[in-house]
């Protein structure tokens, strides 16, 4: 069968040649901050929304949280799919100082795990992150420094209105080339980012609600790369749920309810692949007293209602907050 062998060899060379041509035509997709879960400030009530409950004299809060997201970056060109970031977990420490109706806070997020699948989609070559806490024992993702102010309403009133601003300080580069290979952890845009938000919240009887709408100044625009940021974004979110007292005094309560939030790139507002929407069922136990230390425990479980643009297939988050004074 020598002729068959030649035909097979020719076919193999042709396939290899085609593959090589396609491979060389692929561009390397660059990393970015894939996480779009922007938690509320320590003592801020909901998991993402802010209850604008700042009050009293000088106070503070410290929060420790940890979360996991499954498939937060799934890219597709319609025919092919690739879970570039399949597993992402982190823990965060956040601190806040409050005074009257003002809050200043900062947090730092440390990645625990980042893993996924490398491959090519839509003419781009994606290199998945591959790290855990042993290989990145002291990493900090972009620092967040934030400021919130309640402009209207009392701390427990039926309608509260405020504003918030956040600055993200980049922790490093989007990726780097090591031994000739591109590597990114998908943890940072490598640029400063800012958020400006209008916040609303209220307590009507035993029902609490909160919401926000804002603007994310995001310089990074990789519109042509599937799943990548497309510049500045609109932010939105709403939450609501009943409040149940769990002790006789009513100073410890459980609040359970959904939080729905997302973002959409301004250049393609509410486009299918430029919008991510996520829902989280959150429950929290918190003290509501005006004096002394209060503890808040929060748990959220949910996933992508519109699982694109950084909204994961599912996630869970656990947070514990200690409030000193009355945040």
């Amino acid at each position: 069968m020598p002729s068959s062998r030649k035909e097979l060899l020719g076919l193999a060379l042709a396939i290899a040649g085609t593959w090589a041509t396609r491979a060389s035509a692929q561009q390397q997709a660059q990393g970015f901050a894939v996480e779009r879960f922007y938690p509320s400030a320590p003592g801020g009530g909901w998991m993402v929304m802010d209850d604008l409950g700042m009050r009293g004299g000088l106070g503070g809060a410290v929060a420790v949280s940890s979360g996991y997201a499954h498939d937060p970056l799934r890219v597709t060109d319609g025919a092919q799919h690739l879970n570039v970031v399949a597993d992402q977990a982190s823990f965060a420490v956040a601190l806040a100082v409050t005074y009257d109706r003002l809050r200043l806070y900062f947090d730092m997020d440390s990645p625990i795990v980042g893993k996924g699948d490398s491959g090519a989609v839509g003419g781009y070559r994606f290199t998945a992150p591959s790290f855990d806490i042993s290989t990145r024992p002291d990493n900090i993702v972009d620092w967040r420094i934030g400021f919130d102010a309640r402009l209207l309403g009392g701390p427990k009133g039926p309608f509260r209105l405020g504003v918030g601003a956040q600055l993200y300080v980049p922790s490093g580069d989007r990726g780097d080339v090591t031994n000739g290979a591109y590597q990114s952890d998908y943890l940072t845009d490598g640029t400063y980012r800012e958020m400006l938000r209008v916040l609303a919240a209220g307590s009507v009887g035993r029902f609490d609600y909160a919401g926000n709408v804002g603007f994310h100044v995001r310089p990074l625009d990789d519109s042509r790369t599937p799943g990548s940021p497309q510049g500045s974004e609109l932010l939105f979110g709403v939450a609501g749920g009943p409040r149940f007292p769990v002790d006789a005094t009513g100073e410890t309560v459980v609040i359970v309810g959904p939080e729905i939030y997302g973002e959409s790139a301004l250049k393609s507002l509410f486009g299918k692949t430029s919008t991510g929407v996520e829902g989280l069922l959150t429950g929290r136990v918190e003290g509501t007293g005006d004096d002394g230390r209060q503890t808040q425990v929060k748990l959220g479980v949910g996933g992508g209602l519109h699982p694109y643009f950084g909204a994961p297939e599912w996630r869970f988050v656990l947070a514990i907050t200690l409030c000193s004074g009355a945040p």
Partner: protein
Amino acid sequence: MTRVRRRALARLIGATLVARIVAASAPANAQAAPPGGHEDAAFDFMNLLSHHGMHDIREESWNAYGQFTYISSWKLPFSAPYTNANGSINSLVPDAERSFTGTFTLFFGVRLWRGAEAYVVPEAIEERPLSQLRGIGGAIQNFELQKTGSETPQIYRSRTFLRQTIGFGGDRVEKTSDPMQLATVVGSRRLVLTAGNFTVLDVFDRNSITWDPRQTFLNMAFMTHASWDFPSDARGYSWGGTAEMYWDDWALRVGRITPPQEPNQLPQDFRIWEFYGDQVELEHDHVLLGQAGAARLLGYRNRVDTGRFADAIAALEANPAENAAACTAFNYTSGNATAPDLCYVRKPNVKVGIGINLEQHVTRDIGVFFRAMYSDGQSEVDAFNPADRDLSFGAVAKGPAWRRPFDVTGIGYATSWISRIHAQYLAMGGVDGFIGDGYLRQAPEDVFDVFYSVNLLRAIWLSADYQYLRNPGFNADRGPVNVFGARVHAEF
């Protein structure tokens, strides 16, 4: 007995005598506390809140501090008959060089429940070492360079740990408000458990005379024992747990800490039952002629994935193809084709050492210190310095006597040296993580360090520093080296 060994023995005998003299002094029911602790007159955030009645600085539920330090070092040209001989790569370059580090640190602490404290310490560093941090053994001119970094600032989490104190009574001991210490009153008999991410130096080998290298000597030889290969990542931090038992004027500390996956690298090995660094320290605090002092005995045992010098030499002698230039496993990229290399022989090895740490106040504001350690010297540096034995002593004075209460000055001498087999390995052209000139004429590496810090506005210190470094890299063929330093340090 070689000249070097006789000298080493004489130093240890001297150290032992000093230890006996101090140990024979009257014991006291006092626990050594850093004299440079929180000053009521200092200008910082917590004092500011306290003075305005917004914070209880004697019994804290939280605190927050910060610091900024910029250090610049200028190394003058020095003589060296050879540099990086035969393709070796770890020589200190004999040309004039400038090195710098800049660090910015925030310290946050919060009391969680009775006796429990949590601390988080983010830090940023930028740096440029001399000769890419090569060519100096135990006397690197700037202690901050134990933290790996680059000229672009890097932000990282240096510490995140929990501390639980369990009281057993005794006398009242006031803990002042300081970075990583919440002000409170504890008993002189207590158990303190610490777990998480921290540096071993937060717990072990503390010395209230050289209490903070950002305030005292610039040279790393005075920060801790040069030959204590304490487990840490490439920035000096690690994970693990410690227990400290305080019983009046005695303290016993034990700890198990994670080592790096590869020597002197950042990734940590969390298989803490297989690879670890164990530390044990016994401390006795005393009052001698009315002044506080302390004596500490520290031992360590590391079980880590490293190479032994004898094994590397034997590997080369058995097969010349196993030379430094040919290695493809983790190595330090030496191009010396006739030198042994540790990369061929790395396996779980044990490294042990024992040292003493003495401190004594001469007056309230003047103190002297002495440290000495002997490590086995059979295997390579895994995390800190390549020195195998060390000795250091000196004095530090604060400025009340000359009406500059926040000024600090000090003078110190440190020497470190290496084992015979380590020297043989280097003489054959071998390199470790930091040293290896391609050849070696063995000698102790000595440094003389003198500094003066001028305080401004009770929160900023400007320091001038001079260091005379002899036999860099334990090599009598090279040096001496003169290094001038300047430091700006701010606390807030």
